[in-house]
């Protein structure tokens, strides 16, 4: 079988052949789109790994937290944890300690500060989590246009080729148009996974954010009750 050879024939759909016969502008577009596709998939794979493990660890952390008898002891164990939910918990505990350190405790002010501190911790963690999601958004929105630009350029070049050869037969036009259309194909190749992944990961991050907010609210309620108990004493 002669199959294991690189196809550089223009009559096949070999990407190598289509790339090699293209104009340099179209080549640049193709290279850029390939890099965009690689970056897209790198981000996608990174998100898949990160979000899966993050969800599992958040579940475990919540279970451990609600089982814990002593919050201070639990905080000593988990203070170095880098999980988003652990950061929210650490921020709440830190603010609690700062607010109740003095003799007089303003309950309303302490509650507000606790809510603000944990809310900002949630926002910060979501920001960190959704880093590089903008890459997916950008690629999904722009890659088709970039590919279209390459195609338009390649077809313009084909038509100037017709004008130069003064020959309108399809054999003169067809290879140029095929290689030009390959740019659009590459753009769609990069954009489609990017758009799908962007929607899916946005949804996942929204759920994580809602989960962190629920945890922050519950912890805030716990601290608020504790505040009343401690101040009454």
């Amino acid at each position, binding site marked *: 079988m002669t*199959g294991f050879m*690189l*196809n550089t024939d223009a009559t*096949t759909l070999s990407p190598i052949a289509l790339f090699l016969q293209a104009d340099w502008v179209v080549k640049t577009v193709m290279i850029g789109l390939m890099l965009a596709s690689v970056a897209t998939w*790198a981000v996608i*794979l*990174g*998100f*898949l790994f990160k979000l899966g493990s993050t969800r599992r660890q958040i579940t475990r952390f919540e279970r451990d937290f609600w089982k814990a008898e002593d919050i201070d002891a639990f905080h000593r164990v988990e203070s170095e944890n880098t999980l988003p939910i652990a950061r929210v918990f650490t921020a709440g505990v830190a603010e609690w300690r700062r607010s109740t350190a003095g003799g007089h405790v303003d309950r309303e002010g302490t509650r507000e500060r606790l809510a603000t501190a944990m809310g900002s911790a949630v926002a910060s963690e979501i920001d960190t989590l959704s880093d590089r999601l903008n890459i997916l958004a950008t690629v999904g929105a722009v890659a088709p246009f970039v590919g279209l630009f390459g195609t338009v350029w390649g077809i313009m070049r084909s038509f100037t080729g017709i004008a130069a050869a003064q020959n309108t037969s399809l054999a003169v036009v067809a290879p140029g148009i095929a290689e030009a259309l390959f740019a659009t194909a590459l753009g769609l190749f990069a954009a489609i996974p990017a758009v799908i992944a962007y929607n899916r990961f946005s949804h996942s991050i929204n759920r994580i954010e809602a989960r962190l907010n629920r945890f922050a609210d519950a912890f805030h309620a716990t601290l608020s009750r504790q505040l009343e108990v401690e101040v009454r004493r």
Partner: protein
Amino acid sequence: MTQRDGLGLGLAVVGHVAVFALLSLAWTSAPPPPPQNKPIEVSLADDVALDQHAPAAPEPPAQSAAPEAGPPDDAPPPAKVAKVTPEPAPPKPQPEAAPPPKPAPKPVPAPKKPVAEKPDKPVKTKTPPAKAAAPAAKTEAKATVAKAAGTNPKSTKPRPTGSLLDDDFRKGLTQAPSHAKVSQAAPGATMDAKATADIGSAIQRQVQPCANRQVIPGPGAAKIVAYVRLQLNRDGSLAARPTILPSHRGVDDDNRIYVDAVDRAAIATFTGCAPLRGLPPELYDVPRGWKVFILTYHMPG
């Protein structure tokens, strides 16, 4: 960049390389079409010959007068018998062996008579079969005796071989033409209207593939008729680029813009399918020969 991001990037790069390598390998593309049979060149020439094409014999073959069927070896030829015996004896020694020679030699009138007479009265010769055999045997005996003696003037005649071919058959080989109808054209190559048409159709047949390849530039272009002037070498190749005579037919206001395109298509047609094969070499350099040949060209459709 964390370790997970690095892993994702590595996997992405590897995956892209793998996908494009697979797409670039031949086995993912469609299997090549089965090899087509070598096209056989079929000549659908109606008539590309000249009026006098082959080195034909200037005259038709002379007729052959020799009879073909003969009696068995021992039987003497009847013609000889007729000659030896002046009287119109029945020349058929063995009527049952050989039928009367119907394809009688025409230019030998002498033996024709007895042959012609014979079928007229077959009843009379009903008795002579035995009698006829006897003179034949007698004649043969006489001949052998004469040969043995060597004095008989008839001994100069060759010994009967049993064939009906005797000296007289040479008389059939005359120089006179037979009465078959032959062309009265003079031998040699002349460029007449038929030869011109034949050469034209031969050229047209050979350039037809190239003509079919031309793309009609626009509506009405097929109405334009261009005159193409070919200058040819003796081997059929183009001695110069074909030129288009400035006069065209069928040009109107609608298709005037396509004249140049038609001219280019005409030139491309003849340059693309040159050299031309099978043109009669005798007519190359004669007056109005195909050294310079003017054809009309119009696009199909």
